[in-house]
């Protein structure tokens, strides 16, 4: 028994099936208009920058739309994968620190890493002791004790080596390789971590996944932030090389336009791949699993593998997007990865555009990013106007005007989420229902 449910995508999609995609055209036309307005008011250099960033966010949003829109996995840890991608891009592209490699530190670090592997292997071995008849309780106790002791030992070694790295050579430096290599590895790294997380969490309920991913993102960030030997921590690394000539060489506009063309090509490729996959039986299977796992298992689909696959796929995109974004920003700062900017904003993009609809996601990414960027100055202007009126009528003189105005931006993003959910719960360009006649 269900209450009258207005969720009737079938019929709504039916009615517009054959006509021109008027809705899409109108929305994208409107978006183009908005972007042009920005170009006119903010100048081409800044606006191109905005577009590049929006395109990086679009890659992130596509990653999320796969996970959430396709498969119903709600990943609230986007920030973590972005940070991983950013780290990889940084590590590959910045110059080699010769002081580090000339010292005995790489060797020592290598030994510690080896010790880490050995300890893990020992603990793993102990945890398998029950296979040869050791009682389970004893095995568990042994494993925990060995793990704890091993952990404390390795950690103290690691602390000493990293302490020396920090005091002698500051940090280990980079690899001095082309940056696109870092992007690819960033994707792989994020995918790898995604695999690990998925392994633990995907069996859980969806709301647990939200919390777990939220936490893991914090862990990744805490690690990057506090591992000064690896990332320089809060001291930040900049500038980062670009795959195309940078503004110092060819000026802001040209450099950014070149960068934009790189990201646009990437998006086009990703888009094409996703489109193919979604409209193939693969997409149908994923939606089926999202709907009803018990039944999908009974229909012979291997749920865990598929969920894993899709989670990793999404994470890879997030890693790549994060890498591209970080390179563009020209600065690696672990503290700069914030849930608000790198998780919730992406979330809003996907909600607004339409989870599960790639085109909608793209639309959402660009629109929301423009709103996000413009909301700062706009909030300020509005606030100034209000205060001007307020002081005129009531002699109201609030302090901290600018600070307060910018808080309003957080408010606006929140309100935007709610309004979209309220009036277009499935996004402005909703997921389509497949029809066959």
């Amino acid at each position, binding site marked *: 028994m269900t209450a*009258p449910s207005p969720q009737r995508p079938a019929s709504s999609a039916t009615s517009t099936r054959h006509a021109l995609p008027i809705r899409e055209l109108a929305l994208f036309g409107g978006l183009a208009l908005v972007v042009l307005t920005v170009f006119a008011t903010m100048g081409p250099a800044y606006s191109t920058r905005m577009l590049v960033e929006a395109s990086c966010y679009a890659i992130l949003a596509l990653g999320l739309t796969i996970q959430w829109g396709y498969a119903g996995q709600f990943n609230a840890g986007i920030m973590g994968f972005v940070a991983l991608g950013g780290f990889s891009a940084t590590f590959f592209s910045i110059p080699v620190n010769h002081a580090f490699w000339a010292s005995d530190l790489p060797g020592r670090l290598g030994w510690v890493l080896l010790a880490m592997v050995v300890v893990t292997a020992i603990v793993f071995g102990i945890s398998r002791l029950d296979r040869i008849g050791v009682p389970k309780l004893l095995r568990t106790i042994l494993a925990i004790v060995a793990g704890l002791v091993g952990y404390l030992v390795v950690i103290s070694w690691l602390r000493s080596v990293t302490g020396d790295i920090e005091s002698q050579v500051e940090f280990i430096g980079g690899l001095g390789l082309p940056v696109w290599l870092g992007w690819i590895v960033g994707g792989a790294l994020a995918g790898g971590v995604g695999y690990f997380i998925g392994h633990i969490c995907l069996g859980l309920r969806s709301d647990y996944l939200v919390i777990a991913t939220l936490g893991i993102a914090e862990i990744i960030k805490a690690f990057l932030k506090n591992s000064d030997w690896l990332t320089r921590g809060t001291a930040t690394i900049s500038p980062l090389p670009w795959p195309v000539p940078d503004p110092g060489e060819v000026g802001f506009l040209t450099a950014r336009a070149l960068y934009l063309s790189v990201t646009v090509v990437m998006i086009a490729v990703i888009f094409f791949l996703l489109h193919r996959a979604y409209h193939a039986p693969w997409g149908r299977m994923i939606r089926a699993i999202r709907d009803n796992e018990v039944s999908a298992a009974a229909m012979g689909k291997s749920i865990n593998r598929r969920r894993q696959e899709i989670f990793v796929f999404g994470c890879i995109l997030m890693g790549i997007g994060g890498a591209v974004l970080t390179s563009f920003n020209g600065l690696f700062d672990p503290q700069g990865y914030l849930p608000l900017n790198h998780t919730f904003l992406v979330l809003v993009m996907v909600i607004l555009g339409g989870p599960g609809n790639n085109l909608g996601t793209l639309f959402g990414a660009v629109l929301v990013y423009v709103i996000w960027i413009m909301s700062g100055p706009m909030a300020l202007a509005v606030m100034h106007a209000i205060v001007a009126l307020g002081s005129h009528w009531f002699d109201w003189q609030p302090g901290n005007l600018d600070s307060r105005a910018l808080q309003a931006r957080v408010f606006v993003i929140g309100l935007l989420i709610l309004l979209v959910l309220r009036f277009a719960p499935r996004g402005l360009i909703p997921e389509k229902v497949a029809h066959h006649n």
Partner: protein
Amino acid sequence: MPLLEAVDVHGGYGGMNILNGVNMTIEADEIGVIVGPNGAGKSTMLKAVFGLLTITQGEIRLRGKPITNLSPHKLVEMGMGFVPQEKNIFPSLSVEENLEMGAFLKPATVSRLKAQIYEFFPPLLEKRRQPAGELSGGQRQMVAMGRALMNEPSVLLLDEPTAGLSPRYMNEIFERVKTINAAGVGVLMVEQNAKQALRIAHKGFVLAAGQNRFSDTGEALLNDPQVAKSFLGG
């Protein structure tokens, strides 16, 4: 004055009409049975009566009073009871609590009625502390029925109450419906075990594609060869 009256009811889900002018009348001492093919709109009709659906045209009256689009808990206060076809229990509440919820508006009579229900469905007594979601299909059906009876309704809407029940309980349900009807409760039920249902029915309605196809006494429908062939399985 008829107990329940539906006149030219139109309605559906989110803009699409499923019911295209359904008429039904039952008197206070009558059992009405709705039969028809799957997807005909039988359940939709019951939901419409019970206020779970927006009716776009037509009227529904209870004892002459219009109840069109009244909210369900008002109707419960007016003595209506409903057993839905699907999702008809509270899965995480124990069996006993499910029954108590049935008598939410009449807390005073809970223990007396509970005892009655257990007597009627002995398997539930054993399971009364178990969450209803862990019950077998048939046991769930018993809980659903029991829950509706707990309110001592004066009009009872039943959507396939015997689906999934063993023959023994199916028969008992029909008996029970007869008994409570004899005590003055009007019953409107949807059934796919149509032959048995029509046997106890005073009125039968054959619904197809959201419209009345035949309406007559139960007996007459049973004996109509065309009805039997197309709707009752020969």
